[in-house]
Structures are given as structure tokens and as C-alpha cells.
């Protein structure tokens, strides 16, 4: 049994976010065999970092959670300052300033690491980009694991991160593609790592026919599940869909958009936006469709792909998103496309081979994302950090 501290910028029931969600899962899984505590801020919102939770020590999921006050949230002028740092003439000092203006600036959390970090056998840091990690790992590098959740984005090349990626005793990557990106950027292949992925609960009971009936959907269905926005690539998806449907050979099919609408959706009969669906309905929706499509370019871990494969539904993803294309290549559970033309061919192939692709995906996700497999990878990360 080891003493493990997890450092993450936000932590709590009201927190929505990929890396924060991963941190919470990891905390709970590790707490089954270790003494686990969490060090975080009082923020719940990732943009303003406004204080939301009281500072001090409380309990969540049976874990001790130490919350430290955010001294400065995100600078209201952050976007324009960032534009200068990422694209314009600037001084070295501006790159450190950028980190601070991004927030959450939380000096008490850093003092806690200096004074109390030595009490823990391992300290797991989440998300390279925020100050608690960028300035926290250098305080306890001899016991730090960095779960970087890195994307190929401009800030990754800023000065505050150069040493950060040389310091931890071990890395936890979400995907092999993230590992390759980090190795390529920092030439730190010598630092031990584990590729964590994710563990998933079994889907539980679901009812595909009930989903079709509830939303009056018939014929071949293609599902997009998630926030409907340009940031997620939905504009390109809709353009590709329109091109696909206007082919002379097009079969009847319907694109179902399940998620909060953050953009205009064209009014056409073969596109149905059903809004955000409850979690309980998710697997019914995934099981009811012929294919899931995930058009985003940036994804640190395509969780929805894993969920689709759990119920045997194939996935259609962009070839130029290394993470999702990598997941599809490893699982054999889908098809990739390069452009709007290729999108239609990919969709046809996925629909035609639904059962074969779906069962390949199901077998892979059963192997890779079982809790046993996930716990074993986590144990390996902890061992690499402590030994």
C-alpha cells in the first residue's frame, strides 16, 4: 500500500472535462489498493477558474481532497495576450506570463507540494498545460508521474514546458499517439511510461428498438454523439453528409445528431437533431445505429468510440486525427476517411460490414478497457514512479 497524491486543476461533481474525469476515475481505482488523496483548486469552471468550492480539506468518493484558493483566475485579456505569445514577437518572460494568465494561479497548492509532497510515495499530475502541473512537477520530480493529456497544439512548444517533460519519473499517456507526439517533441524516450487508456463499465441493459421508436427513426442510421459544434468538426461533417447524400447512388439514410446544439443545423429530412440524450439512453442509441461518426480533428481519447464498440457498432473517423485513426487501426472496429468524397465511401463500407467491424471492436474494447486491464496498467504506472 502506497501513499498517492493526485494533483489536478479541478475535481468534483460539478466538473466536466476529459482529463478531470480521467483523474477522478484513476483516484477511485487506485483507492482500492492505496491511500489516495487529491490536491486541487477551488475552481469548477475551466475558463474563469472562479472560486466555487470552499478551500480546505473535504471528502469526495471517500478520498481526502485538499482544495487551495485560486489567487488569480484567467486574465480577461487572455485570448489577445495568447495570440501575441503564440504568433507574434514576444520576450521569453512573456511565455511564463502566459502560463500565469491562463490560470488557475494557485500558489498555496505549490507550497503544499513543497511542504507535504515528501509524505507521498507518488504524486500523479494531470494535464501538462496548467500551472499546478507546470510549476508543481518541478517541486517533486523525484516522485512525480505526469499524465500529460497532450495534443499537438502550439502551447506545447512554449518555454515553461521544455523542462517539464524531462522531469517526471514516469509518464501516463492516454494513447500511443500521445506518447509518439511527446517523444517526437521532447526526445524523452528514456523516461518510463505506461499507456493508460481507460477502463469502462459494462453497458448494462439497453434497447435499440425503443430508441428508434422513441425518436421515430427508420432505415439506416448514422449517429454523431457529443456537443454539436464547429470545434468538434460538425460543420465539416454536415458538408460531407450533404455531398454523400446527393450522390446518384445514395441509399436512404439518416444522420442523427445527439448532443447540445452549439451551431446552426440545416433543415433537411435526412438530418435529425435530437438534443442531448440522458446517459441511460446512450448505449441504446449506439446500438440502434449502423455506424457512429466522429469527425473531430483533436481528441485526446475517443471515449465514445470505445462505447460504440462495447455494443458492436462500427466507427467512422478522420484519417488525419492520429488518436481516433489509431484507435480504429488497433481495434479493427471502423473505417477512416480523408475528405468529403472519402467520407461517403467510408460510410458505405462501415454500413456494409457492420457486423464484422462491430464484433472486432467489441472484442478489442473487451480486452483493452476492462477494469482488470486498466487497473494493471495503473499499477504499472505507480510502480514505475516509485521504484
Amino acid at each position: 500500500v502506497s501513499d498517492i497524491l493526485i494533483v489536478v486543476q479541478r475535481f468534483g461533481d460539478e466538473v466536466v472535462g476529459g482529463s478531470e474525469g480521467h483523474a477522478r476515475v484513476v483516484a477511485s481505482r487506485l483507492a482500492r489498493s492505496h491511500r489516495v488523496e487529491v490536491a486541487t483548486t477551488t475552481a469548477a469552471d475551466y475558463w474563469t477558474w472562479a472560486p466555487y468550492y470552499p478551500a480546505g480539506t473535504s471528502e469526495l468518493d471517500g478520498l481526502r481532497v485538499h482544495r487551495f484558493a485560486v489567487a488569480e483566475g484567467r486574465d480577461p485579456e487572455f485570448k489577445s495576450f495568447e495570440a501575441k505569445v503564440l504568433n507574434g514577437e514576444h520576450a521569453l518572460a512573456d511565455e511564463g506570463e502566459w502560463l500565469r494568465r491562463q490560470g488557475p494561479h494557485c500558489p498555496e497548492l505549490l507550497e503544499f507540494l513543497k511542504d507535504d509532497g515528501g509524505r507521498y510515495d507518488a504524486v500523479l499530475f494531470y494535464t501538462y498545460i496548467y500551472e499546478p502541473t507546470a510549476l508543481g512537477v518541478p517541486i517533486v520530480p523525484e516522485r512525480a508521474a505526469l499524465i500529460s493529456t497532450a495534443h499537438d497544439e502550439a502551447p506545447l512548444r512554449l518555454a515553461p514546458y521544455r523542462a517539464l517533460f524531462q522531469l517526471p519519473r514516469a509518464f501516463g499517456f492516454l494513447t500511443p499517439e500521445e506518447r509518439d507526439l511527446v517523444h517526437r517533441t521532447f526526445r524523452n524516450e528514456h523516461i518510463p511510461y505506461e499507456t493508460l487508456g481507460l477502463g469502462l463499465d459494462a453497458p448494462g441493459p439497453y434497447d435499440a428498438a425503443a430508441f428508434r421508436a422513441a425518436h421515430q427513426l427508420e432505415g439506416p442510421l448514422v449517429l454523431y454523439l457529443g456537443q454539436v459544434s464547429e470545434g468538434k468538426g460538425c460543420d465539416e461533417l454536415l458538408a460531407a453528409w450533404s455531398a454523400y447524400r446527393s450522390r446518384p447512388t445514395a441509399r436512404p439514410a439518416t444522420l442523427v445528431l445527439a448532443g447540445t446544439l452549439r451551431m446552426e443545423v440545416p433543415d433537411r429530412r435526412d438530418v435529425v437533431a435530437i438534443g442531448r440524450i440522458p446517459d441511460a439512453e446512450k448505449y441504446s442509441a449506439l446500438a440502434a445505429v449502423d455506424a457512429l461518426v466522429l469527425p473531430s480533428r483533436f481528441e485526446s481519447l475517443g471515449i465514445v468510440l470505445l462505447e460504440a464498440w462495447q455494443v458492436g457498432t462500427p466507427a467512422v473517423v478522420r484519417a488525419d486525427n492520429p488518436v481516433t485513426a489509431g484507435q480504429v487501426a488497433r481495434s479493427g472496429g471502423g473505417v477512416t476517411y480523408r475528405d468529403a468524397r472519402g467520407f461517403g465511401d467510408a460510410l458505405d463500407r462501415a454500413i456494409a460490414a457492420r457486423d464484422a467491424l462491430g464484433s472486432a471492436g467489441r472484442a478489442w474494447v473487451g480486452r483493452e478497457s476492462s477494469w482488470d486491464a486498466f487497473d494493471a496498467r495503473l499499477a504499472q504506472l505507480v510502480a514505475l514512479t516509485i521504484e
Partner: protein
Amino acid sequence: MTAPTLMVVVQRYGDIAGGGAEAHARAVVQRLRPYFNVEVATTTARDYWTWANEFTPGLNAVDGVPVHRFPVERGRSRDFRLRERRAFSETHTLADERAFVEAQGPVAPDLLEHVHRRGRAVDHVLFFTYIYYPTVLGLPLAPERAVLVPTAHDEPAIRLAIYKPVFCAPRAIAFNTAEERAMVHGLFRNERVPNEVVGVGVDVPAGRSADRFRQRYAIEGPYFLYVGRIVESKQCGQLFDAFARWQDSRGMRATLVLMGHREMPVPDRPDIRLLGRTSDEDKFDALAGCVALVQPSLLESLSIIALEAWACGRPVICDARSPVVWGMTYRAGAGLAYRSAAEYAEISEMLIARPQLASRLGASGQSFVARTYTWPRVVEAYLDLFAEVRARNA
């Protein structure tokens, strides 16, 4: 094929007084020139305490090597001692640590900009001395091509959290001694960083003459030699006390010869001879004829003068509490260590009484230096470390 490029970063460089690490850097630059396109990045400071701007900023040359000098924005602050006390106290904060590094100086932000921009255009960046601003803030800007020569000893500063990245982020570390390496690994758990005991080469001139020294300074009978700054922090006060107690209590007569800049009172007595700063010829002549070199300092990362004594075939007397000097002396089988003034006297008398023992210890030191601290071996060790850096970044 053009030679690989090497940038050397050090707090002071050129014709400056004192400064073991700076002299070390300059000697290494000279020896590595045949293998690399070397450039030096440093400050305009000449004095290690004030860091006052004395050299002209900009590009010039030292020994034919291009040297970029950047202005010191802030030298050592007037409240440095206060900042130091705060940072070394049990209850200090991270802000206290940053304030200490800045108060210590030399604060040279333009030098950092240079490392930031130019550092990644060269194949290697060699940082000398872990403790000062240029290394603390510069090394994290080019960690994947950084090689650190820490010249570290066990002192309060090295335990500050702010130094952890300096020891954990570089691509390789060149230690001065096996003892320094063991201390650093114990403090930082950074065994993963490739490293080697590299040190420096020791050159001693031929034609050393003890007689010339005795005549020039009118010194008769057996004498022991101390070479270095004469300061309390190098335990010189304790040495004087132990020597005086020995001489005042018993028969065997001897002289203690002191060479170096005096920064503390020296007892006024005929058997302690203060010669001040001397020429290299005097130093090596004196080494040739001494019973032993005395090295009382506890805080050395590498005692060059001890290596020079051994290279001249003479033994070393040191304090048993000094991890580096006694560690090296013990491994080399090239001297004896005292735990008290009484032991200091016994050792001194034994070496006077048994000149063959003294010569045997000295000869053992001579072969230790020939095994480790020669320029061909030092250069080879650097070439190996740099080759590893290039291979990893290829």
C-alpha cells in the same frame, strides 16, 4: 563534415580572479576546441560577489573563442544575507527560494533570451555550476541538449526545491568526483540522468625545485603547505589552532606555509609563514618539498590543489569530516585524515618521522591522478557524454 556546435554557459569568463568553476570552464573550453565549434555565453561581471558590470557587453574573443557577454541587470543584492537566511530557514516558502536566487545574482535576463533562442540551434549546451541564476533559469530552456557540470558540495542551498530541475532535467551530468556523484544521487534520486565522473586534467611543470623555494622564502626544516583562499569557511581557523597547539606542546619542529589571499587574521608567530598570492612556479616548488599538503576545507567539490600535490608525489592531510577530500584521499590511498587536533599532530609527526611512508602515499596519489585526472581522459569522457546527447536528439 563540420564539427558539432557547443555553447558553454557560465556566470563569469575570461581574465578574472579566483573562481574554481570559472577556471575549470576555461580550461575545458581550451581542451574541447579541437572537437567542437565552441562559443561561450556569460555576463559582463568580473567579481563573483558584486557581479558589477566590468566587461563590455557584446561579442568578443577569449583565447580565440567567441564569447557573448550579457549585462548584469542586478548584482548581488544588499540584503543577500537576509534573503539567504530566509531561504535556508525551516519554514521558508517557494517565493523565498526565488528571492534568494535573484538576490545572489547575477540576474542577466538577456543571457536567458540568448540561451532560449540560440541554445536550441547548437548541438550541446554545457552549464557550469548549479547554483547561480544563469544555470538555474537557463538550463530549463534547453534541457534536451544540456550537460551540467554542477561543481556541487553539500551546503544548505543545494537542498532548496528550486534546484531540483537543475539536477533532474539535463541530458547528462559531468561530476568532478565519485563523492559528488553519490551526494547528488542521494539528494535528487536522479540516477537516471546519464553521468560520468569527468573532473579536470592536472598539469604540473617539470623542473620543480624545493631548494629554490626554500632559498627564496628562507624556509628551513620540515614544512606543511596550505594553498588557497585563507578564509574561515575553508576551516583555516581550525587549522591554525591545531598547528599552534601541536607546536606549543611538543618537540618536533615544523613550519606551516600559507599561500593564497588572506581574508581572515593569521596568528603572528614564526612557525606560520604567510606568503600571500604567489606564482605557479613558487606553488609547484613548494609542493615538491612539503612533507604534505594540508587541505582542511569541508566544502570542496574537487580539490584541485590536492590533485596537484599528488601529481607532485606528495601526500595530503585532510579533515575526516570532508566527504569529498577524504573520500578521494582514501580511495587514492594518498594521505591521512584527522578527527581532532591531537590526531592532526600525530599524523604530522608520523609523516615527518617516516619520510618513506609520506613518499609512498604521495606516489599512490600520483598514480590515482594519472588514472583519472588527465586531460586525455577528461576530453574522452566529455566526447562520450556529448555523443550520447547527440544520439538521443538525432
